[in-house]
């Protein structure tokens, strides 16, 4: 049922492979796709991946630098695969420990791994174990817990108080209904359910305030009283039931009018275990359920103090126990304790999840503090944890340094462009093919599209390239005038006399309110006729969840097929970056007609001079799209255009 199973080293040599019966196509393609999209893009948090009709699951062995991949048809749901991979990994490691432990690739090249029989055995075991379990059968009514309940207990009463969990559930009853226990028990003593109903309705006759007070008192009284009372109370209702109707006891009301007299003091100990509540009542300035008056200061000492005391006692007990055990260890191995500390530094120690947990948490918080989007920071940390699990640390390296180093490597890897980014080269190529090179700028409002468009056209004309600016922002007031001003300034910096009599920058505009896609198409045709090298298309800013505008943008891009679609994002953006990019890409993919929709090809990161070293937005954007950052805007003059230096950005990120 498995299509294939491969074991290969991280250096690329396939150590052993298995191809299922009847499978003819090679598995190199899907496995390479897995490596490229998951492992290299630091998305190895979850360990499965789908490629066409095949589903791939993988496991990294970081100690011996191996990768285990299994592939099967997506439509099958095989439950045993995860455990199977783990078993195979353990088996393979144990069997070939000697060859794998040697450094250098010679051992891997020269040895032949005859793993067939072991593998078939393990596969058979896994398949049988998955069949053995079988579907769970339904329980009969008698076997279920419901049959043990009495009918009365299951009747739901109006007002929300459910008088259930009587018969078989005594303990649970006590624990659950602690605050409401007292009045409930008084009511349950009455026999018929109908009376119960009316009584409960009367219960609701009290105002909210009084109910809160009452419940509070119960809670406090419960805490004050010994916990031993709890189980003793629960058998009581069972006994009291047959007694018949009992007089209801109101706790606050008491049995006589004397108890209702509060003029002397702030209540007696008997029914004022809630000093709290009475104080609150007596306080003239405080009115609980209205918005007037001062709020009662939260005194954790008195009322919740009791509860806290109890909790604290438990904690202290626990802590004492823990301290004892830990004290014992150093006494026994005081000699070993000193060496144990050294051993932690020297010698081989393999990393486990628990070791890395605190360091990774700190790193995650650090990244988030540096403006990396929260979910991306956690995905990154998971991926680093997967990459390091089981790895043997070298001498004199601590866990923190290893994790930091691995995180740094993966950050640099994310920021490296996945393909060649040389716009000038592509422009020269397009010139030889006598067609204009079209760049489209899109993004949300106010990120700096028009400003950076002007900077890029300045860079291009400095290198002898003629530019046509297409003003497809037909919505914002002054957009066309802004571009015209830029055009005039650029032309004055590079006057037409120096460049053969024709202006280096021209603006193609059709005013306001027209269709942007149409203007873009006409601009490109004009550029082709007049032999312009580059067309820069400026679009209106739009929010990512504004569907009609996103549709319009997608239409512009789908119809005109630009060579480069650049998403302009500002470096100040935080978690929003993820949402923006995802929704933009989604819109572009949804509204294009072709099989291969044009998605965002590159990112322009603007307003980089406003952030000091909180450069996390760069990471968020490249991680989400997988596309490189092509330009970095560092100011508002024409010269403030840079390219991204991955090492510098990662250095600023990891700096404490």
């Amino acid at each position, binding site marked *: 049922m498995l299509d294939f199973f*491969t074991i*290969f*080293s*991280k*250096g*690329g*040599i*396939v150590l052993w*492979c298995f191809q299922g019966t009847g499978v003819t196509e090679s598995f*190199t393609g899907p*496995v*390479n796709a897995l*490596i*490229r999209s998951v*492992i*290299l*893009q630091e998305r190895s948090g979850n360990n499965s991946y789908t490629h066409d009709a095949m589903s791939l699951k993988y496991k990294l062995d970081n100690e011996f*630098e191996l*990768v285990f991949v299994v592939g099967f048809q997506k439509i099958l749901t095989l439950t045993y695969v995860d455990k199977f991979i783990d078993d195979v990994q353990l088996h393979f490691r144990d069997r070939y420990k000697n060859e794998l432990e040697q450094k*250098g*690739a*010679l051992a891997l*090249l*020269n040895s032949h791994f005859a793993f067939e029989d072991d593998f078939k055995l393990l596969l058979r075991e896994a398949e049988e174990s998955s069949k053995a379990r079988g579907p769970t059968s339904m329980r009969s009514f008698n076997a279920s817990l419901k049959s043990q309940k009495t009918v009365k207990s299951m009747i739901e009463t109006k007002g929300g108080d459910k008088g259930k969990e009587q018969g078989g559930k005594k303990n649970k009853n006590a624990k659950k209904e602690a605050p409401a226990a007292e009045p409930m028990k008084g009511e349950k003593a009455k026999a018929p359910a109908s009376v119960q109903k009316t009584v409960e309705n009367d219960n609701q006759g009290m105002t909210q305030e009084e109910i809160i007070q009452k419940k509070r008192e119960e809670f406090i009284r419960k805490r004050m009283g010994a916990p031993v009372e709890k189980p003793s109370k629960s058998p009581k209702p069972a006994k009291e039931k047959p007694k018949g109707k009992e007089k209801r006891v109101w706790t606050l009301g008491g049995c006589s009018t004397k108890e209702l007299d509060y003029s002397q003091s702030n209540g007696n100990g008997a029914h004022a275990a809630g000093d709290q509540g009475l104080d609150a009542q007596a306080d003239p300035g405080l009115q609980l359920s209205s918005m007037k008056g001062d709020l009662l200061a939260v005194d954790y000492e008195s009322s919740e103090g009791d509860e806290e005391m109890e909790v604290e006692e438990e904690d202290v007990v626990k802590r004492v126990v823990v301290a004892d055990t830990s004290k014992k260890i150093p006494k026994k191995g*005081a*000699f070993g304790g*000193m060496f144990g500390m050294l051993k932690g530094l020297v010698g081989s120690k393999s990393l486990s999840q628990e070791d890395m947990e605190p360091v990774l948490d700190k790193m995650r918080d650090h990244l988030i503090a540096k403006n990396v989007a929260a979910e991306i920071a956690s995905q990154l940390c998971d991926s680093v944890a997967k990459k390091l699990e089981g790895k043997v640390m070298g001498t004199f390296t601590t866990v923190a340094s290893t994790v930091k180093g691995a995180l740094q*490597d993966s950050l*640099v*890897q*994310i920021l*490296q*462009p*996945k*393909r*060649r980014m*040389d716009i*000038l*080269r592509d422009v*020269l190529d397009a010139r030889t093919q006598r067609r204009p090179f079209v760049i489209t700028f899109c993004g949300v409002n106010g990120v700096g599209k028009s400003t950076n468009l002007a900077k890029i056209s300045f*860079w291009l004309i*400095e*290198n002898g390239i003629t530019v046509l600016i297409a003003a497809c922002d037909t919505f914002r007031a002054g957009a066309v005038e802004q571009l015209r001003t830029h055009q005039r300034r650029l032309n004055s910096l590079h006057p037409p006399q120096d460049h053969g009599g024709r202006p280096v920058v021209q603006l193609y505009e059709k005013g306001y309110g027209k269709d942007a896609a149409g203007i873009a198409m006409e601009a490109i045709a004009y550029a082709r006729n007049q032999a312009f090298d580059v067309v820069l298309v400026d679009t209106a800013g739009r929010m990512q969840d504004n569907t009609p505008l996103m549709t319009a943008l997608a239409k512009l891009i789908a119809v005109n097929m630009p060579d480069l679609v650049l998403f302009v994002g500002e470096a100040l953006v935080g978690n929003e970056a993820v949402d923006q990019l995802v929704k933009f890409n989604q819109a572009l993919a949804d509204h294009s007609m072709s099989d291969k929709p044009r998605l965002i090809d590159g990112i322009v990161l603007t307003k*980089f001079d406003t952030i000091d070293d909180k450069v996390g937005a760069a990471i968020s954007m490249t991680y989400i799209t997988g596309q490189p950052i092509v*330009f*970095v805007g*560092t100011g508002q003059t024409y010269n403030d*255009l*840079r*390219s*991204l*230096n*991955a090492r*510098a*950005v990662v250095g600023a990120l990891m700096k404490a």
Partner: protein
Amino acid sequence: MEEKIDVEAGENPFQPYLDSLRKVLEDQDPIFIVGIIVSLAVVVITFVLLKYFISSKTVQSAVLLVGLSDSGKTLLFSRLLSGKFKKTQTSITDSSAPYKAKNERGSSWTLVDLPGHDSLRPQYVEKFKSAARAMVFVVDSAIFQKEVRDVAEFLYFLLTDSAVYRNVPSLIVACNKQDITMAKSAKLIRQQLEKEMNTLRVTRSAALSAQDGSAGASVHLGKKGKDFEFSQLPMKVEFLECSARGSKGEDGEADIASLEKSLAKL
């Protein structure tokens, strides 16, 4: 002396041993103790110096296999070392092994196979470039036409690197996958690369500087004013053809005789 002993161990179990040691040492002549310390220091210094000298000898003893992804580096690595054909996947990390050259001297150096994937390439080249005495740049001759710009950019990046410019390792461009019928010849690849590098010289020098102010490589390849040619480079450049898979595929020998000869000359 006594302070040193105290600092060494503050634990109880050590105490009796240390007391006895201290007594023994105090019985000795103080000059003798000074002599011991001086000799220890001399040993340590010699050790450090030796290590420095030995490491400087081996600082450039690696031959790197570089190239774009899927050009056949890992298979070439396997063939050179063991002669066997191995199925390969995209490399994630580097692999290295000692290689015995096929010449009279029998010199042996380290052969390092670097991953070619775009996101891993720069950092691995960064790690190994200073230790390189030669680089084998593997090119996929069959799909060269489509990839010519990427190949040229990587080669430009390698040649303008400051460490490479300083150490001047020899460069062997191995045009791999000659067993495929549509493979281009080494001469054609050389011509195409020269033309492409010519254009790249112009565009790369016009590239934007990085955001922290560090500019790109300021090394100018070849001679100014003249078209770029590989012969203008300060290092020895050689183009040869090879086929890691070999004409008979998995069972047969690889066609890497010329490569082995060049490696022997290093």
